[in-house]
């Protein structure tokens, strides 16, 4: 049961301040000073009327914008006075404005009823408000028991890692880049100096796309420069020495690496630049515990006149240290688009094993020259799924990524 407070009673008689304001305004525009003079609760009145969108103020003058036919709150004051029911929403509004309050006798009665029933299991608002909690005999709980496990809504395990990796690169001053899943062979391979008959283009590795049938190539000069590099090389390099075909370069693929995005970016930027992405790549492989047809790649490039191989090792080491790997080593690797190719390996203590994390290197001049870059470009493409696999010893990544085992996702430790 609720009853009107003194202020509530006053407004029942005189009308709510905002109602009285509307009454004044019905006669025409009025300045704020005049309202202040005429209305004791002018500031309450103006703020409520503004909130409801009834009035507007321009250059110190208050104008009526849209007056309501009747004011619901005013009506509900009347209803409370005559003990009629009102909506929960209006009730909350009235309580908030301290225009109504719960009848104390009711609260005491309810609290007493609770006390009569013996030991108290749940503390209630009635017990608190009446002060009768002082007489309560609280039931003993066993605080060593926590009850059943809660299952919160939370991020997917991999998201913790994606976010962490993104944070690390943003902290190191890298700008994030983004490209589309569908890419032309040109950007995915040709621009990276992968010859058109290279084993990497084998049907079993790359998803070729039937629809859309083909892609548009970039600027003619750029295409021509890439073609020349493949066919004839440059003043210092021999090239591959075969006939480069435009139709092969136009063939769309699902990008096999985000290095395609780096290549595109290189054709657009001026050094120095530091760019990264954490995004999905695709390989036409059969799904098993260690091969995923789609997975995340951590991509990064550093384009600068003064960078060299030790800088590349430095970026990689810094990254893995920040991701929580203390020991890292570097082994020679091979990628058709880098020279000084390196495969970083991190030491995984629980398994007493060094594990390969991906690839890195300095882009070959045959890659950078046609893209208009004449300074060294450090580049890497690292695995992401391996990080949770290693740190948490999850044996089969399919459970998380492809099968979405909700129990494991909810209980995964971080």
């Amino acid at each position, binding site marked *: 049961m609720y009853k009107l407070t003194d202020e509530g009673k006053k407004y029942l008689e005189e009308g709510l301040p905002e109602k009285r304001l509307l009454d004044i305004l019905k006669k025409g525009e009025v300045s704020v000073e005049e309202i202040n003079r005429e209305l004791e609760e002018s500031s309450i009145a103006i703020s409520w009327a503004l909130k409801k969108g009834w009035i507007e103020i321009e250059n110190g003058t208050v104008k009526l914008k849209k007056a309501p036919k009747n004011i619901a709150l005013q009506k509900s004051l009347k209803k409370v006075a005559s003990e009629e029911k009102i909506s929960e929403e209006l009730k909350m509004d009235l309580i908030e404005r301290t225009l109504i309050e719960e009848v104390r006798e009711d609260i005491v009665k309810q609290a007493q009823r609770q006390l009569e029933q013996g030991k108290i299991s749940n503390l209630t608002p009635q017990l608190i408000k009446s002060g009768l909690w002082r007489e309560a005999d609280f039931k003993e709980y066993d605080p060593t028991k926590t009850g059943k496990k809660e299952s919160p*809504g939370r991020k997917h395990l991999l998201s913790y890692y994606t976010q962490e990796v993104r944070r690390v690169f943003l902290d190191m001053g890298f700008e994030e880049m983004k490209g589309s899943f569908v890419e032309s062979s040109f950007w995915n391979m040709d621009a990276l100096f992968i010859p058109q008959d290279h084993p990497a283009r084998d049907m079993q590795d790359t998803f070729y796309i039937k629809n*859309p049938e083909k892609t548009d190539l970039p600027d003619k000069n750029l295409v021509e420069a890439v073609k020349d590099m493949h066919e004839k090389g440059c003043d210092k390099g021999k090239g591959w020495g075969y006939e480069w075909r435009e139709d092969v370069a136009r063939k769309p693929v699902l990008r096999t690496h985000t290095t395609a995005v780096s290549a595109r970016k290189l054709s657009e930027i001026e050094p120095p630049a530091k760019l990264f992405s954490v995004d999905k790549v695709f390989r036409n492989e059969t799904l098993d515990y260690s091969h995923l047809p789609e997975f995340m790649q951590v991509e990064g490039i*550093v384009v600068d006149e003064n960078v*060299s191989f030790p800088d590349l090792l430095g970026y990689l080491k810094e990254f893995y240290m920040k991701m929580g790997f203390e020991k890292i080593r570097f*082994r020679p690797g091979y990628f058709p688009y880098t020279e000084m190719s390196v495969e970083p390996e991190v030491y995984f203590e629980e398994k007493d094993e060094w594990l390969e994390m991906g690839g890195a290197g300095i882009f070959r001049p045959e890659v950078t020259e046609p893209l208009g870059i004449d300074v*060294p470009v450090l580049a890497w493409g690292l695995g992401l799924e391996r990080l949770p696999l290693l740190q948490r010893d999850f044996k089969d990544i399919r459970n998380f990524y492809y099968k979405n085992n909700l129990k494991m996702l909810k209980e995964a430790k971080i």
Partner: protein
Amino acid sequence: MAVVSFDVKELEDLTGKKLSSDLLENKIPMMGCEFEGLENGNVDYEIFPNRPDLLSVEGFARALRYFLGLDEGVETYKTTKSGQSLEIDKTVDPVRPCISAAIVKNMSMDDSVLKSLMQVQEKIHKTFGRERRKIAIGIHDFDCIEGPFTYKAVDPKKVEFIPLQSTERMDLREIGRKHPKGKYTEILKNHDKWPVIVDKNDEVLSFPPVINGKLTEVTEDTENIFIDVTGTDQRSVDHALSIISTLFWERNGSIETVTVNGKEKPDLDPEEMAVDINYVNKLLDLELSEKEFAELIRGMGFGYSDGKVRIPPYRTDIMHPMDIVEDVGISYGYSNFEVRIPDVPGVGKQQKVEEFSEKVKELIIGFGFQEVKTTVLTNYEKQFLKMEREREEVTEMENPLSGDYKICRKYLLPGLMEVIRQNQHRSYPQKVFEIGDIVKIDKDKDVGTENRRKLGALISNDNVNYSNLASVVSSLMDILGKKPKIKRHKSGTYLENRAGKFVLGDKEIGTVGEIHPKVLENWGIEKPVVAFELDLDLIRKNKS
């Protein structure tokens, strides 16, 4: 990539050094290969595709001798003219135009040499040779044949011989049908005439790239060898011949040249490449003197004098001075470089779409939803048929290995339905969501498609209805400061009169509704599901 297996004892004999397991496992990979395992006296390495010269135990041991400092510099391969010749007939031009040949004398064959030969041929065919399409190697007992030789293309029904691993005389088409290696005739299928190498008496030595003749089978008694390499690209054919013929040098054979259309083959003279030491020092951040540089590069089997690096003929991967830089780096030792703390300037900046997605993700988790990740690759059945939706134009794969990966998803909802189906035995209510990219056909883009960021979510429980989720969407949109209109929506996916679509400005940004029991039945889901899917890119870009 190719994994090769070497007998450790043999590798030790050819290297001239005892190889400890630490050396095999940890040091040798620093030369540029990957350790795969050591078992029963055999060691396995993965060889990178740029180094076909490491595919044989002989070539591998040679590189190892240099790397371990047991040997130095470019070996000068002495060759003599054999006086033999091979003519290329024009008929091969359309089918397999390139060939090269060499002769090796005074070999002492034994089982291990034969095994090594088999392995290297097989590996080169598979990788460098593109399954024999680009390169095929034939090795013959030279003493069974008489030059001059001819390489020509013939009517496959009119030429017959006894192929290896057979006793029967067959024509070329029969070989294609009956012989275990006959599958390689696939490479020739678009041609009427197929290539053969014949000797003076028109005896078939080889039917490249398919099979050799029984006539020239190499055995432990073979002393003199004839090598042919055929293919589609002359440079690669010559490279393969250099790699194979220098391998016999390691077994003390003497290499003799063959006159192939007037040119002496193989040409094993080292190529010279001018390398600026400043360039090397800059990229590696070292201060090598010329002498130090020369020492390092010799440790990789190269020669050096007067500003020029001499490249041994089997190092077919050297295309640019940059490749020399890498070999210097390997010789110096990757582990000996001082790692530098990088200091290239730059300001961190994230993609707007990621920033926005993170905000939305935080909100939707606040509503109690669990994030899941489903695959971009899917099929028509899941995306459309099971959802009782008309098929739409989507990105379609040409060569998927599995029927599950035929198309790129256009909707997130089917993936979420699959999650629920797979988790039906787990506790309820199930509230899941995914924020991820879908692929939309867009003819105006250079790649013909566009990635779109979407949010999909659903609730499944015994007792769940439209308002449980519609309220989530409207609160979400409210917090994001967007005021979409909601209209009635009709589709096979949702129950009639229990679905709405959201419209922001003139753009439809998504739908919400109770999943139709027919769709639940299609998926085998036994509890009610309400779901929504929104286009986050459209919401983010809306300026209302």
